[in-house]
């Protein structure tokens, strides 16, 4: 597939490595160490997989951000999903959610004692499940960023069009721009530039970041997920840091348009409205989430079953919050690779393939 392999050419990567080295030398001459954050979990995974961190000069550091939707899902949310499974409902979910510990147990644990948990490749699978089992409620775990929100919303629309009454959605959607805003204004977080997510941006469009870049004067590059895309993104950020003129650069113009995907945005707007969202390890960020509009509340599992998403108590030894803010690298967590590993994850960052801890663990040994 030329649109994948062409973006992995090793000689072009060596060329970019050399360019990045030259830019970093100029920054080093000014005694500058730069901290760049890749916000998206798919970038984290690609960076680990292709060993990009290892080819960067010492004064260019890459930090992973809060861009894995599984990792930022609250323990209270997992607890609620387990409780709903125990009440006899079918939980329909993307597979990554199975092993995420809530306040102790996981959905996989609930399933092993008879809970009904259906793993979906597409959220549309939940509709089939509901139609085949009309006497049983199917609750879809509606998590995800802007990339995943439109597909899930399309399922809400389909359920509504079919008039299904045995399907509902436990929503914990999250939005990337408010998270960037929260990170940038957190005095403990030091980031000199952001590698913005590729497919979130495909939905929201490159213009969505412009107010952020202008307000905080921080360089941002939208980059694809192939190694050359990421190296180009890093090069672009270093150039901006040297010129002192921060801007938003869209390096993924083969997919991301200025205005984003209008059909997807219209679908979201028709069905969803802004809501505060709680990010695991980070806390509540105002208006950083979306929930179903009032006319669709009958599809809101929290309303339908009186679920309160509060008070989860995740394992206090887990440092995912610090990892997601770029304050700690996964190997610096005392549990990393010991008590916490991909077979027995203590925190969500070790569960999802896109979690920082899992990416480090898988590729750094």
């Amino acid at each position, binding site marked *: 597939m030329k649109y994948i392999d062409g973006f992995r*050419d090793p000689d072009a990567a060596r060329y970019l490595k050399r360019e990045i080295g030259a830019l970093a030398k100029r920054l080093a001459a000014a005694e500058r160490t730069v901290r760049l954050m890749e916000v998206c979990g798919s970038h984290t995974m690609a960076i680990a997989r292709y060993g990009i961190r290892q080819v960067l000069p010492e004064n260019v550091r890459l930090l992973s951000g809060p861009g894995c939707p599984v990792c930022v899902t609250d323990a209270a949310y997992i607890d609620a999903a387990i409780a709903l499974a125990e009440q006899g409902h079918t939980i329909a979910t993307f597979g990554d959610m199975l092993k995420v510990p809530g306040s102790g147990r996981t959905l996989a644990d609930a399933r092993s004692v008879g809970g009904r948990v259906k793993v979906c490749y597409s959220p549309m699978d939940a509709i089939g499940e509901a139609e085949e089992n009309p006497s049983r409620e199917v609750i879809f775990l509606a998590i995800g960023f802007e990339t995943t929100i439109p597909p899930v919303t399309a399922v809400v629309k389909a359920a509504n069009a079919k008039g299904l009454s045995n399907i509902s959605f436990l929503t914990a959607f999250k939005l990337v721009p408010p998270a960037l805003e929260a990170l940038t204004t957190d005095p403990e977080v030091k980031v000199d530039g952001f590698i913005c997510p590729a497919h979130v941006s495909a939905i929201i469009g490159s213009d969505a970041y412009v107010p952020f870049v202008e307000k905080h004067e921080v360089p941002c590059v939208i980059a694809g997920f192939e190694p050359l895309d990421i190296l180009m993104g890093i090069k672009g950020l270093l150039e901006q840091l040297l010129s002192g003129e921060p801007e938003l650069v869209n390096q993924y113009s083969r*997919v991301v348009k200025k205005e984003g995907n209008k059909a997807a945005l219209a679908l979201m707007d028709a069905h969803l409205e802004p809501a505060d969202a709680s990010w695991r390890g980070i806390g509540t960020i105002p208006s950083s989430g979306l929930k179903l509009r009032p006319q669709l509340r009958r599809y809101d599992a929290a309303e339908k079953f009186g679920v309160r998403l509060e008070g989860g108590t995740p394992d206090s030894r887990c440092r995912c919050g610090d990892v997601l803010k770029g304050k700690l690298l996964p190997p610096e967590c005392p549990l990393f690779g010991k008590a916490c590993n991909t077979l027995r994850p203590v925190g969500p960052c070790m569960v999802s393939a896109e979690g920082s801890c899992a990416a480090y663990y898988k590729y750094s040994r």
Partner: protein
Amino acid sequence: MCLAVPMKIVELKNDSAGVCELDGTRYDVDLSLIETPSLQEYVIVHAGFAIEKLDEAEASARLELFEGMAQAYREDETGPAGEGE
């Protein structure tokens, strides 16, 4: 869970469903988020949904840029002055 890959549309079933292909494997894909999907076009597929088209002209321009870089690197490595990295 955010994995999304480019695939080619090889069959249109109705205005919101089709079949896409990646490396010889065919997948049913929901095309409702794509305005005017057409055969042979590339789309980015995530969780069974095409979420955006892939602009082939933009992609080719990028690939050319990277080819140029690869070539420049090789020439520097084996060039007449013999001064590589």
